[in-house]
């Protein structure tokens, strides 16, 4: 066998069945690759054999009135988004593009990859994550069996919701061959209200106030002074307001009236600038240009600042950061260290609850440091049993999520 890399382009599920059955016999693992935009995401555990979904493309069903779309897993996300856009619809979960952070061609990612990592953007807090929009799927499990789950309708509780399991499983359970998604209308227009000039704690408090208001803000971020892409001279709390024109402007005024007691000043980004800003925050461009190790922390909104303060107190060398999800998602870039500061970061996160994922670090470090948050023993044991229910011989993406499988 080729000592370097063997890549198998599958044409359909039957090809995947053949490959995975053979792999089970030989006990040789496979990595799954679409466009390759996430190959540096997850634990570094290089595998010799790859299954590529690049030939497994095409939208197989799209019924705009039913809000449903199915596509083969190798279909570029870009194609799906363009098709939806032509019908004034969208993937409301705004899958992030990892290319700016991890290298590779931007906008090259596939829908299968987006689902496999549960990619979600700033609208997560209102519209949900990828996992909330996956209605059903077809796959080939690590056993080499063709399995389907879910359906194509909005309400379905028939059997276990395996869609949730495959979303965010990084290909460790099954190779997705086709996914069916709930799609939603695009908002008629959007604006972003900038709340400027407050300190960090006050800015985050304004995000939480807005998130507890009836004004249906769809995204809540906080960008420190000087941070790309805005490069403002003050901290900025950012509130995205989407909907019909008349509604957007009245809600913006209502928010200004509600938040105006803090001495902040307000600015508004019109539609195009607002769209560009949230696309940049979705793809983590505020950190991308900095060299350094990048972490993604998911905590309760009130804990984001506390965790960051804890890290500052512990002397963590923070290069850049920003908050999304009303303070509950912290993107961090730190000076490189041999342990990627994993101990310090996880101690701070564990003190309040949540999880931290190492997103960007060298292969060597991602092989040594837990990329995903360590789990208590009973949960780790259960996780392994769930993995083995799909893939008993650890054929798919061995080592990608946990050293144990």
């Amino acid at each position, binding site marked *: 066998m080729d000592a370097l890399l063997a890549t198998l382009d599958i044409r359909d599920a039957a090809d995947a069945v053949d490959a995975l059955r053979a792999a089970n016999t030989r006990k040789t693992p496979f990595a799954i690759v679409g466009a390759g935009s996430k190959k540096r995401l997850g634990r570094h555990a290089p595998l010799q054999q790859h299954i590529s979904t690049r030939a497994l493309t095409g939208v197989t069903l799209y019924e705009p009135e*039913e809000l449903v779309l199915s596509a083969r897993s190798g279909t570029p996300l870009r194609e799906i988004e363009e098709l939806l856009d032509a019908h004034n619809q969208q993937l409301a979960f705004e899958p992030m593009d990892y290319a700016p952070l991890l290298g590779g061609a931007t906008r090259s990612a596939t829908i299968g990859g987006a689902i496999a990592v549960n990619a979600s953007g700033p609208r997560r807090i209102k519209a949900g994550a990828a996992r*909330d929009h996956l209605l059903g799927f077809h796959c080939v499990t690590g056993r080499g069996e063709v399995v389907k*789950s879910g359906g194509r309708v*909005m309400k379905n509780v028939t059997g276990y919701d395996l869609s949730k399991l495959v979303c*965010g499983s990084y290909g460790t359970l099954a190779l997705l061959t086709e996914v069916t998604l709930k799609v939603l209308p695009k908002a008629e227009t959007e604006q972003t209200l900038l709340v400027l000039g407050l300190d960090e704690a006050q800015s985050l408090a304004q995000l939480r106030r807005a998130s*507890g208001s009836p004004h249906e803000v769809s995204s809540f971020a906080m960008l420190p002074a000087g941070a790309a892409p805005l490069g403002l001279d003050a901290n900025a709390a950012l509130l995205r307001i989407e909907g019909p024109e008349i509604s957007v402007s009245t809600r913006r005024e209502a928010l200004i009236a509600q938040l105006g007691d803090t001495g902040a000043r307000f600015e508004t980004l019109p539609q195009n600038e607002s769209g560009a800003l949230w696309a940049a925050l979705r793809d983590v461009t505020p950190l991308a240009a900095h060299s350094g190790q990048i972490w993604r922390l998911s*905590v309760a909104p009130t*804990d984001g600042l506390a965790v960051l303060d804890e890290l500052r107190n512990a002397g963590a060398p923070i290069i850049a950061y920003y908050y999304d999800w009303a303070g509950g998602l912290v993107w961090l870039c730190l000076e490189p260290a041999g342990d990627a500061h994993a101990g310090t970061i996880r101690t701070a996160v564990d003190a309040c609850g949540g999880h931290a994922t190492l997103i960007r670090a060298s292969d060597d470090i991602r092989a040594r440091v837990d990329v995903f948050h360590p789990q208590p023993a009973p949960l780790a044991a259960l996780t392994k049993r769930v993995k083995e229910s799909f893939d008993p011989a650890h054929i798919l993406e061995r080592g990608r999520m946990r050293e144990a499988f």
Partner: protein
Amino acid sequence: MTLAMPAPEPEILARRDELIERLRAILPTQNLIMDETARRAYECDAFTMYRALPLVVALPETVAQVSAVLALAAEMNVKIVPRGSGTSLSGGSMPLEDGILLGMSKFNRILEIDYENRCARVQPGVQNLAISKAVESRGFYYAPDPSSQIACSIGGNVAENAGGVHCLKYGLTTNNILGLEVVLMGGEIIRLGGKHLDSEAYDLLGLMTGSEGLLGVVTEVTVRILQKPAVARGLLVGFSSVEAGARFVGAVIARGIIPGGMEMMDKATIHAVERFQPCGYPLDAEAIVIVELDGAQAEVDHLVGLVETIARDEGATTTKVSKSEAERLQFWAGRKNAFPAVSCIKPDYLCMDGTIPRARLPEVLAGMDEIAKREGLQVANVFHAGDGNLHPLILYDASIEGEMERAEKVGFDILRLCVAVGGVLTGEHGVGVEKRDLMGEMFNETDLDQQLRVKCAFDSLNRLNPGKVFPTLHRCAEFGMMHVSGGKTPFPDLPRF
């Protein structure tokens, strides 16, 4: 009565005294229900066609007690059925004659309301509506609103992934849950998620939601709470055909509008409702659609105008827009009373629950009518039109010999039709006992085997709520999921049916 439950295992029945003795060491005597008369209160849930007297009812009050009861059940190889308020319409919490019924009703406290993080931590026995009531003074609510929300418990909602009128816009239970504490069959306590978004690693939080009590027992739930929309207005739109009503629903969505609720009723239901409690529905309409638009005042006013125009374009015979909160609630009053109202037509009904692609609605309604007529029965329809979730009510009279069995057959045929047009067996009531034997309509054996393997990862002896959801009771060893020693599986007498 066509659904067989696994035959009670004589060796478990024989050990009832020992089981009770050991439960006494875990729970105070008043938390154990042993005498037959008291156990009768638990013999069924809201799926009343099937009943069984539980071996014993255990009512734990602490997580430690739940853990100890589950560990004991695992050790003694006794089946265990979790139950919340018992409002399952599919028999999800129907007891087993050789099983412990684990009632979670004493877990009835709201532990924490955290407005800043827009969530609440509650025990599983808390009623759905009680969460909204607890936070309404601050303008918040909990979005999923099953029709039984005044009675059903949040733990049961998690088990069934309950829905309701608001689901099209605000999602199901699974989209509104942030965290769970779960006790596994061996007694291990795990926490999934929390106040943060997205469960880490494998989304076991999402898997647990809708797993019908087969994977673990929920002892705490962290739910999202939302700020109530500024205003809500309703439209009541009548059509001269079901097809026109269905086209209207599609046109609203195609225009990019996602209403807070969009419900449809057919003529039989409209007339039953008007006889039961008149609320001004047009009696000449073949179908009515109630649309609720919620959000900022300016947006709602704008959208009401758009929806009115769409209704006109689609040939509505009547269009009323609510001018007051009282009028909006009156539009809903008939919908909320639809189920009791149809009892005026016939004493009994079976409420089915399939979801279909919305565009197939006219042909499915016609097909349902045909199926019912074949058995000499009638179907009344009320459904969540926005998301295609149908609730045909099959009317029958249990006092007439054979009519219940015919109603059951009609229900099965209707669900088969739903699947045949690309839909599913259940949109919100769960598979439970009711639709268990129809799972093969949607899934092939390999699909079902994979789901059973997931079950085995949680409960390798199949002791937690067996006989529900899956038509055959496999041994985990058959899937290579259990350690087999010397060719002998543990408990070789595990029943199959």
